[in-house]
């Protein structure tokens, strides 16, 4: 097991290096000279002298690979630079925003699993019944529905017409009232994907020989489903949590923007709009590392849960 974990971690190194190169070079995608770009604020370009001073100070006059190595060294020491907008370290902004995103993701994930697992199970047990058809049509709609549209529709219904929930905002540190609408918006999309997977995985489990055996020896249908089939059917759903997390991170960009949730997605969008490039660089780097680590954890847990998978069989 430890061998496997180490092997996977070593495999991550080249990917992480490329991630760092991509994040680093993002600043060079922007039109114009990076020193000028970094010195440009909402008030316009800085004077040429201070741009020159900045260039020397930040080492932007050095060759590109030296710049990259300096930057990488700083990043490895947890220094992602400073937000030109606020002047405080990028890392602090990201830490705060991540807290909000994490909270939203956890609630969304709970909502998603609470919807998808029961529906997936019911669909599988009552395969091809009207209930199953309805669930799967719902899942197709859920996958195809733009989350920004769903968010606005929920806002319209619960915020504007019924007035039950606040339309947007973070409230008092992200309270339940404020988190519900964005979390439902995010959770529904991933619920649609998970429900389909749960259904097919449950159908596969129910078709196995040991289910026949259990039924033959007189185990009640309830126990067959909840103990024998469900346990095995849940395994693929666990890996899905990792994919779900990617889905939630992606969705957070749009949903946080709509609902004014101060998370990492909104921070990224705001930083792009304000041309706060150090922050953009920090956000994309952070999100990528987070994503890679989560996927690693899911891979490890997957193999831990399902002993049938041999550690050395992976790639």
């Amino acid at each position, binding site marked *: 097991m430890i061998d496997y974990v180490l092997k996977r971690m070593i495999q991550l190194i*080249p*990917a*992480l290096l*490329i*991630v760092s190169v*991509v994040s680093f070079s*993002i*600043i060079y*995608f*922007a*039109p114009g000279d990076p020193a000028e770009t970094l010195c440009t604020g909402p008030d316009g370009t800085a004077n040429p002298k201070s741009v020159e001073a900045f260039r020397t100070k930040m080492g932007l006059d050095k060759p590109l690979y030296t710049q990259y190595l300096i930057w990488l060294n700083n990043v490895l020491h947890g220094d992602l630079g400073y937000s030109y907008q606020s002047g405080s370290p990028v890392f602090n902004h990201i830490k705060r925003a991540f807290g909000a995103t994490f909270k939203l993701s956890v609630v969304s994930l709970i909502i998603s699993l609470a919807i998808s697992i029961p529906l997936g199970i019911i669909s599988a047990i009552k395969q091809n019944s009207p209930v199953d058809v309805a669930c799967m049509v719902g899942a*197709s*709609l859920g*996958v*195809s*529905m*733009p*989350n*920004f*549209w769903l968010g*606005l*529709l929920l*806002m*319209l219904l619960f915020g*504007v017409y019924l007035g039950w929930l606040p339309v947007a905002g973070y409230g008092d540190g992200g309270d339940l009232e404020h988190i519900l609408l964005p979390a439902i918006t995010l959770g529904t999309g991933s619920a649609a994907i998970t429900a389909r997977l749960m259904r097919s995985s449950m159908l596969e489990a129910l078709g196995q020989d040991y289910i026949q055996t259990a039924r033959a020896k007189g185990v009640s249908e309830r126990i067959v489903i909840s103990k024998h089939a469900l346990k095995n059917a849940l395994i693929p759903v666990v890996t899905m949590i990792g994919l779900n997390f*990617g889905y939630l*991170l*992606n*969705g957070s*960009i*749009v949903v946080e*923007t709509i609902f004014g949730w101060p998370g990492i*997605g909104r921070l*990224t*969008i705001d930083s*792009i*709009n304000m041309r706060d490039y150090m922050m*953009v660089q920090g*956000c*994309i780097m952070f*999100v*990528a590392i987070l*994503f*890679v680590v989560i996927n690693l954890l899911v891979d490890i847990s997957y193999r831990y849960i399902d002993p049938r998978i041999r550690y050395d069989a992976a790639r």
Partner: protein
Amino acid sequence: MMQHDKHDSWVTNTVARVRESRSAMLGLATVVSLVLLAIFAPQLSPNDPTEVCLGDRLISPFKESKYPLGTDHLGRCVLSRLLYGARVSLAVGITVVGVSTAIGVALGVVSGYYGGILDSAIMRLVDATLSFPSIFLAVVIAGMLGRGLASVMIALVAVEWTSYARVSRGSVLSLKEKEFVESARSLGARDSHIMTRHILPNIIAPVIVVATIGMAYVILAAAALSFLGFGAQPPTPEWGAMLNAGRVYMRTAPYLTILPGFAIMLLVLAFNLLGDGLRDILDPRRVVVE
């Protein structure tokens, strides 16, 4: 000759099976209808989609026969904008999926065929791209390149090509040990000939499946990027941008929020249904019950 016959039966077989699959047919019919609406948008639109008429602002749907689906905050005809919007979404989808397929399949085939360092290098690039949540990466690239549909398309190609590279590499790995490749090689065929004439025709099926579902993803993502303000700029009639402009008037004119979102969902759903249906039909692992 044998190859050719096999290819023909593969196509007719697929067509027959698509006809049997109700959801694939529904998806196909919807895609075809929406494509026709997009093509004939100039003939079907009651008004010019970008014509501003401030005297006719925010007219609700079904109120005036001149504007069947009402008007937006600048008095522009919503129906005409929705029809022209289908053109934008489909054009973006086709361009991004087309370019991604070309890049992805070329790299995937080369990667799988030659193996070695080239393969490792290409696959690490794929891994690194997949390390980023795709919309995040696309947003950052589009944001850095500047606003506009071109930036959105470049950003989406940058994340989309990996799916095609992976699926074609996987298919090539199993194909290159097959007898017909071996025999072509022993007859002295060049690598480029084997790749384009023998391998490429045989990986079309999985690539079509990925491309169909890719259309759904790209249309959704492009609409999201436009919604966030990075894509289509005014006055281009684009669904995501229409939704973003309309949401300000959510309380007084909810149809400006509801209609464009519904259009996006319909088009995305159609491609998803078609893609899921094709996947079930073309999946070689599927047990054929005849």
